[in-house]
């Protein structure tokens, strides 16, 4: 990952130029962008820019809408075939399934890009490298779109992000008055930008507005309160579904199994899993290490704010990117920011 520290090159383009550019990208590569599918927004393959879901107020603020699932699914799909196994007689033949196509993801939000960066630490920066993830990551260019403001569930500024944070993108777009300021953040991003056609500029990108801050409790706090009844109390309403983990940009647990495709042909698949489910980490003999709902929900928060920083260090204070999707989808109203406040308050 080459995050060049030098002042990035910038261009200013119109909506039409943007659409033409995206159309060109869609021809040569797989373009993935927010798309409206039966009333909800998802990152999906689009064949041209007209299929992209821009937000409702298309005329005033030409901005893409934020998908309900994070861009994690592009790199770490819900189900992924790792390889196929052909068996004939005594012979066993394995064939890897590497994704080889060049992909561009458009309309990535800073929280999503940060999520991908945090996943890098898990899948790519520690040995052994996860080859499927690494291949997808290497083939993919992220075109970000700065959020103009935080929505009611967002708290990225509290966890070290910002609505206009370009750090983890390859190309960043800022929208202002129907025009777009394009910033090439990495070499990979610059490669996608058409040479002389666009007007160069040295304007400073428009600043986004942000709202209040949530405190992030220190490590000691987390250690201190591990055995508190608090976790049982807040988990009472938890339904033990996995919606929060599956929409999260950084939840990365998976399960691997071999399944039959047809007699003699098998596949090894890897699927999303979540510590919210009751059978998570069940071992032979049926023992479930986290049988209680409170233990499972506690694990989710500890994983984000304690285990991840402990394990993968970096400069990350947490594995939470503050996107607020878990708050949005929770059918029972479990709220991660409330946990942060409560923990900070406790002495």
């Amino acid at each position, binding site marked *: 990952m080459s995050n060049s520290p030098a002042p990035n090159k910038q261009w200013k383009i119109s909506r039409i130029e943007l659409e033409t550019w995206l159309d060109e990208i869609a021809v040569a590569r797989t373009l993935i962008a927010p798309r409206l*599918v*039966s*009333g*909800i927004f*998802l990152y*999906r*393959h689009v064949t041209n820019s007209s299929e992209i879901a821009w937000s409702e107020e298309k005329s005033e603020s030409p901005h893409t809408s934020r998908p*309900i*699932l994070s861009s994690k699914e592009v790199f770490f799909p*819900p*189900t992924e075939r790792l390889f196929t196994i052909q068996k004939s007689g005594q012979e066993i033949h394995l064939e890897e399934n590497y994704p080889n196509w060049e992909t561009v993801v458009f309309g990535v939000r800073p929280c999503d890009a940060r999520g991908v960066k945090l996943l890098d630490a898990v899948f790519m920066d520690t040995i052994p490298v996860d080859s499927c993830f690494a291949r997808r990551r290497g083939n993919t260019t992220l075109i970000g779109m700065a959020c103009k403001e935080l929505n*009611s*569930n967002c708290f990225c500024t509290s966890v070290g992000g910002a609505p206009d944070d370009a750090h983890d993108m390859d190309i960043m777009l800022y929208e202002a008055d129907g025009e777009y300021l394009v910033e090439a953040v990495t070499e990979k991003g610059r490669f996608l930008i058409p040479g002389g056609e666009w007007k160069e500029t040295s304007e400073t990108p428009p600043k986004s507005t942000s709202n209040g801050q949530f405190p992030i409790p220190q490590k000691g706090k987390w250690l201190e309160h591990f055995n508190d009844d608090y976790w049982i109390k807040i988990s*009472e*309403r938890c*339904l*033990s*579904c*996995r*919606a929060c*983990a*599956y*929409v999260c940009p950084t939840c990365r647990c998976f*399960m691997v*199994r071999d*399944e039959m495709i047809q007699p003699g042909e098998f596949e090894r*698949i890897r*699927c*999303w899993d*979540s510590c919210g*489910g009751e*059978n998570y980490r069940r071992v032979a003999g049926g023992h479930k290490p986290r049988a209680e709902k409170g233990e499972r929900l506690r694990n989710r928060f500890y994983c984000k704010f304690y285990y991840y920083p402990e394990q993968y260090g970096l400069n990350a204070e947490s594995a939470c990117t503050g996107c607020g999707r878990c*708050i949005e*989808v929770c*059918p*029972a*109203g479990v*709220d991660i*920011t*409330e946990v942060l*406040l409560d923990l900070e308050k406790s002495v």
Partner: protein
Amino acid sequence: MYEPRIIAFLCSWCSYTGADSAGIARIKSPANIRAVRVPCSGRVSPELIIKAFDQEADGVLVLGCHIGECHYDTGNHRTAKRLPILRNLMAFAGLEPERIRLDWVSASEGERFSKITEEFTQVVRSLGPVHWRVDQNGIQVDKRLAISREAIPYPVTDCTAKTDAIREKARELLTSQRVGCVIGYEISLRGRTRPVFVYTPDEVERLVWNPDCTNNLVTYLPAKLRAVKGQETLKPVAIIVKPCDSKSINVLLAENLIQRDQVHAIGVACDGIQGLDGNLQTRCVPCQEAIPVICDTLISGTMSSLIPRVKSYARDEIAELDTAKPAERMEFWLGQIDRCIRCYACRQACPLCNCPECLYEGDDSTFIGLGIELNEKRTFHLGRAFHLAGRCVGCNECERACPMGIPIGLLNQKLAADIVAAFDHRAGLTVARSPIVSVLSGEYKEG
């Protein structure tokens, strides 16, 4: 030439021997039949039939003993009730209903066995290969229904009287120690209305009532009653219920999952619930029930005349799908279910999905793979809908909990309508079990 693959589930007491009789008598039967010998046609669970189609069967034939001749007395009665409902469900999901057939063949009826299998093979052959199994994901079909759900704005409603009454009742119940816990609603810091569990009288101020009280709290009830079982005295639990929620208490009572004296139901006269968009939730649009069917305390009120009660969008949508061609229905459902991420929020939010271990989960499920793929997701949703047939009270929590906006409630409501038509059974109105999933009712009322 195309030859269909047909799975035939044959009862070992009758039709399996019937097939033998056909063979002994040298009567020709089609070679398309793959026989699966079962101890009784009642043993053929719907999951097996769905699985047969998942594994690319072109047709499924179930042959049992004639009514009145079951070796186990009533096994075939179960089949006779279950299969037509399953066929409706599969047809609703886009399978041609002719691909499932139930019939009766006794041990001596070799000729009848041959005739039925010949007929069925002919029917399936003329239908052509089945297109049930799908081998790709991300099919990107976005087929919308023509019915548009009209938004009915929710009027500003003052709920302070109801809130006060709930708090007062909760305080009384907790102070007198008649209940150990009150399950109700509170408003979170963020302003969201959500479930809360109150154990002491000084916490009752947290309880509220407002038009956002959407959760069906009965979901929490069985676990709450189990959780306190270990304590010396098992105290009843008080729970705030809307009319739709109260029906799920009746189903739990009928299925012996909770006891009546363990529950103190605080029923709230309901005026409909508001969605996140500030409009009346679509499930509430046709609802005429203001008073819970079961309550020990009633927090009364009148239904607001400001909210027009019109037609049921779900019913119209089901009718629209029913009149569509099977291929169109299939396309619609595949497009919807494609979005499923198998988070199981629907199942977890459901007050009546209460198996200790879900058939459609886990690394050792017989009926479903581990993958979050289209086939598996459809099998899960169809299986779940069937397990709720005659039990689903229509609270639509599954659909609300779904982060992907899949109209799963339509499957349940389709089956509920079929069961009303066939058995005149409406789930939860009284303490009665489902006529098809859990009991043999109907013909055997006198016993």
